[in-house]
């Protein structure tokens, strides 16, 4: 089996889900003949027909709301929001209905839907095309929030999301769509939706991150290794519910933690991880937790996106700070 990109891996997972369950339906803007603006759904309409892979009119509120309606009636809708900046029109349906339908009806009606959307910047795209506002969904009870960071994890996590009985916000780092290739075995195996991935073993510091920031974080870990600092890297991936156990265990070992994310700093998932480390891991921390994040400013247009997105150098600098105190 040859190596494939994340775009291809996601396509593979979608195809398998469409294949194995007649109730799976894919719809969104331009997902049909065009195969999605990133070509994630390429070929699916041809293969599975226009009744199950549909181009929707331009209406995010209705797309999300119809998915809720379908999901309650036994369909497993997978919707695509073209860019995360356009998810906001769907927020009412996500918060007021998708995440609550089970609770509101005491599990009489449920909402097994997946909302896929590209996430994050770094691709020189126009305004509103580079959002990383996963934190607002991570605050909402009843949702799952997932961000894969490699082709193989994208495949396994998406299958898990589709088969999950509850609504999942599946955020695809567009910067990673074609950045790397990986061997992906199309065996239909899902990955668990509530365990972090440990991407690298280390003993001096724990680097906690997800999505596209895995890239810079792994680079930082490499450079740190050459400087004699051994970094453990955790890919949170399943951001809600949050698997703090893996993170706490790692930090108990390393005594130091740097959290890296692209989203704005304030009131983000990084805040929650840092808060829980302070609450539950205080005694094992040798140094204050560092957060390397997007700034608390509007994601700039692409000329300055490089200065906004955390760089390897910023991550390294934060790690060094944790090493100073001891």
């Amino acid at each position: 089996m040859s190596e494939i990109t994340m775009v291809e891996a996601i396509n593979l997972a979608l195809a398998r889900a469409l294949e194995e369950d007649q109730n799976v339906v894919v719809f969104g803007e331009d997902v049909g003949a065009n195969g999605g603006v990133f070509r994630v759904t390429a070929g699916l309409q041809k293969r599975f027909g226009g009744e199950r892979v549909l181009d929707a009119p331009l209406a995010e509120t209705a797309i999300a709301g119809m998915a809720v309606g379908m999901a309650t009636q036994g369909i497993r809708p997978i919707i695509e929001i073209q860019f995360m900046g356009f998810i906001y029109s769907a927020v009412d349906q996500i918060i007021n209905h998708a995440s609550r339908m089970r609770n509101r009806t005491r599990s009489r009606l449920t909402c097994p839907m997946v909302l896929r959307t590209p996430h994050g910047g770094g691709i020189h795209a126009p305004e509103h095309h580079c959002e990383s506002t996963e934190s607002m969904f991570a605050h909402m009870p009843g949702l799952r929030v997932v961000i894969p960071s490699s082709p193989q994890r994208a495949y396994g996590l998406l299958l898990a999301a589709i088969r999950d009985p509850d609504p999942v916000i599946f955020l695809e780092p567009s910067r990673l769509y074609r950045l790397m290739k990986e061997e992906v075995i199309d065996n239909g195996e899902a990955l668990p939706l509530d365990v972090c991935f440990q991407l690298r073993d280390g003993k001096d510091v724990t680097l906690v991150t997800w999505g596209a920031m895995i890239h810079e974080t792994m680079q930082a870990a490499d450079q740190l290794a050459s400087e004699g600092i051994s970094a453990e890297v955790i890919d949170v991936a399943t951001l809600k519910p949050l698997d703090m156990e893996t993170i706490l265990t790692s930090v108990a070992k390393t005594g130091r933690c740097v959290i890296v994310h692209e989203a704005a700093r304030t009131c983000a998932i990084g805040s929650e991880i840092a808060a829980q480390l302070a609450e539950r891991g205080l005694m094992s921390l040798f140094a204050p937790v560092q957060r390397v994040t997007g700034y608390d400013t509007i994601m700039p247009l692409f000329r300055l996106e490089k200065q906004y997105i955390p760089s390897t150098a910023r991550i390294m600098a934060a790690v060094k700070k944790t090493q100073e105190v001891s």
Partner: protein
Amino acid sequence: MNASERPDHSPPLGSETRVVAFEIKHTQIIDHHGAPLGPLPEFAKDPAELIKLYRAMVLTRLFDNKAIALQRTGKMGTYASSNGQEGVAVGMGSAMQPCDVFAPVYREYGTQFMRGVAMHEILLYWGGDERGMNYAQQRQDFPISVPIASQIPHAVGAAFAMKLRKEPRVSVGVLGDGASSKGDFYESLNIAGAWQLPVVIVIVNNQWAISLPRHEQSFAATLAQKGIAAGVPCEQVDGNDVIAMRYIMERALERARNGGGPTLIEALTYRMSDHTTADDASRYRPPAELEGQRQFDPIMRLKNYLTHNADWDDAKEQALQAECSAEIESEVKLYLDTPPMPPESMFDHLYETLPAIYKEQRDEVMQLGATGGGEDHV
């Protein structure tokens, strides 16, 4: 959709002027004194059938009175009355089949009861208990939807499921005149049209959205014409004429069931009550308007018809009222006797399986018990 079915009648660029034309029809079958304005639909020729409709309306009205009383005596929370709108609700409910799916707002008790939703379930819901929306019957029907118009995409999504599975079922979504200003409604009506889904959408125009009168809600002459925007057949009906309501509804359901796509119906009625028990309509509604509307009451209208055409009399009326009241009382008892949910149940329908990370919180709630840790709340 192949080319010949294309709805786009735009003239090719460079052609001469052309015109597309539309009209909105209004239907009424018996006038507000109860006199037929023309021939009756088949179902209305059977007095027993009409008495069923009458009973459903009376039951709904009596339920309503009782629910308000429960609220006023502190036995229930805020309640939205359907007083005056029973014709619309019963018209819809009688036209639908059990296999159809219903997406209500919060004033369609009449429809829900006909579909088998229990009165004590509705009371539980307004009594602040999620179990009220766990209907024992009609388990595919949607719960009451408080965020206005947000249920219309659900109804359309359900219709998609039916069409995909080639089932001869129809989805029915209801909204108010106020709700007809909201994007959710337009967006999903447009998709229902584009995808020709088996859905009937009913605007219950009760002339008010809390304090906003219909004429300030939209400059559109009718709300039915909103269907034109989506290329969806649309019409107006006198919703206080339960016969007309059922007739128009049946026709739309049949079209949808036979693959003819969606319909938008504007049902004209009037909210005789305050918006909810938390509202005081006298702040914004001229009392004369309410009084003027009493003559159009849907229950009185059908009663007049039955009196003249089906030997309806006081004795029958009293028997009916007694029967309905007894039914209501026993449901009220069921409601009042329902033991409270354990507090920790707030975690039990969050996900299919509670993720480990939340177990600690659930344990805390269980341990704190009924008081939440203290009697000191406001």
